[in-house]
């Protein structure tokens, strides 16, 4: 077999380096998808599935300038009926993992806690048809949503943080007649 000359070897090496560089620059992280599934359990048999790439939401939201929504941010005073949400969120940021609210009554149990850097809300209503709600939002998403000292909600930043998250279920609601699940993963089919 004929040996390759030094020039040919350099060219082949250069081509491999170019191909490798091209592969690296084209390799993108897997697209993250937000899924919403609503299943009607009342006997109607209705199901609703929505699959939305987070990158699309991240690009589209800043383009909407309507009402309080501008450049992907909602301007709000974050004061709701004498409750200063911004201050509460500031306190949440610095607080260690803890139970913040626990309500146990004959009608419902409510638990609000910070667990493993996630804000967790559980609501369980009593009775056969009682509603079960589970909300788990990573603190970093909340931090991005409400930047410290601001009075606006940055939806684009929150979505950007969600893109960095692993697969996670954000919201589940179980009722006698309906169940809702909102989650994030890398599958576009939401199966």
């Amino acid at each position, binding site marked *: 077999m004929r040996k390759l000359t030094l020039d040919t070897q350099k060219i082949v090496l250069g081509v491999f380096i170019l191909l490798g560089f091209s592969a690296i620059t084209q390799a993108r992280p897997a*697209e993250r998808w937000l899924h919403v599934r609503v299943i*009607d359990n009342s006997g*109607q*048999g*209705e*199901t*609703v*599935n*929505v*699959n*939305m*790439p987070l*990158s*699309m939401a991240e*690009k*589209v939201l*800043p*383009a*909407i*300038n*309507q009402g309080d929504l501008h450049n992907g941010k909602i301007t709000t005073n974050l004061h709701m009926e004498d409750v200063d949400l911004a201050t509460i969120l500031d306190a949440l940021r610095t607080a260690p993992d803890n139970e913040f609210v626990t309500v146990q009554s004959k009608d419902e149990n409510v638990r609000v806690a910070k667990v493993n850097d996630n804000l967790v809300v559980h609501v369980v209503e009593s009775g056969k048809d009682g509603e079960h709600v589970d909300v788990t939002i990573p603190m970093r998403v909340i931090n991005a949503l409400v930047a410290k000292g601001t009075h606006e909600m940055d939806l684009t930043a929150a979505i950007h943080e969600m893109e960095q998250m692993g697969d996670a279920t954000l919201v589940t609601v179980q009722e006698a007649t309906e169940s809702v699940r909102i989650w994030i993963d890398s599958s*576009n*089919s939401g199966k």
Partner: protein
Amino acid sequence: MTTRDKVLWTIAAIALVGCFLTARGGIVNVHVVERQPEVHNIHVIVPGILVTMTLHLVPARCFHNSSSDLQQWLPVVRAVSDSFSKMPDTVLVEVTDPQEHVLVRKSGGSLITDVNDANEYVHVSVPVRMLRDTAEIVAAKQSRN
């Protein structure tokens, strides 16, 4: 080259340009099957480029009374169009109940909507690029008024 050859080459060139323009603009495909009370089957296939070219010919004053100002929504249309082109083919929305099935999906460069119920079946396939071009043309004509 004989006259016959020239004619054949011209036809081939026109067909090639036509194919290129059709491929670029995509195809609008509307299929409606009405099952009740009477059976109707309507199938319309139009090259997207024809829609945008026709819009160019419509005088700007025809868009004078358009209720919504498209100009403010153009960035949204552009953002959706850009994201859409990079997205893999997928089902975006699916609603299923015993009476009806609604499916909104992305296939190739087209947004496809299928509605199937006891009375009718509707299939609408629209190239997203054409939707964007249409929005751009209408917005430009609105701004001229």
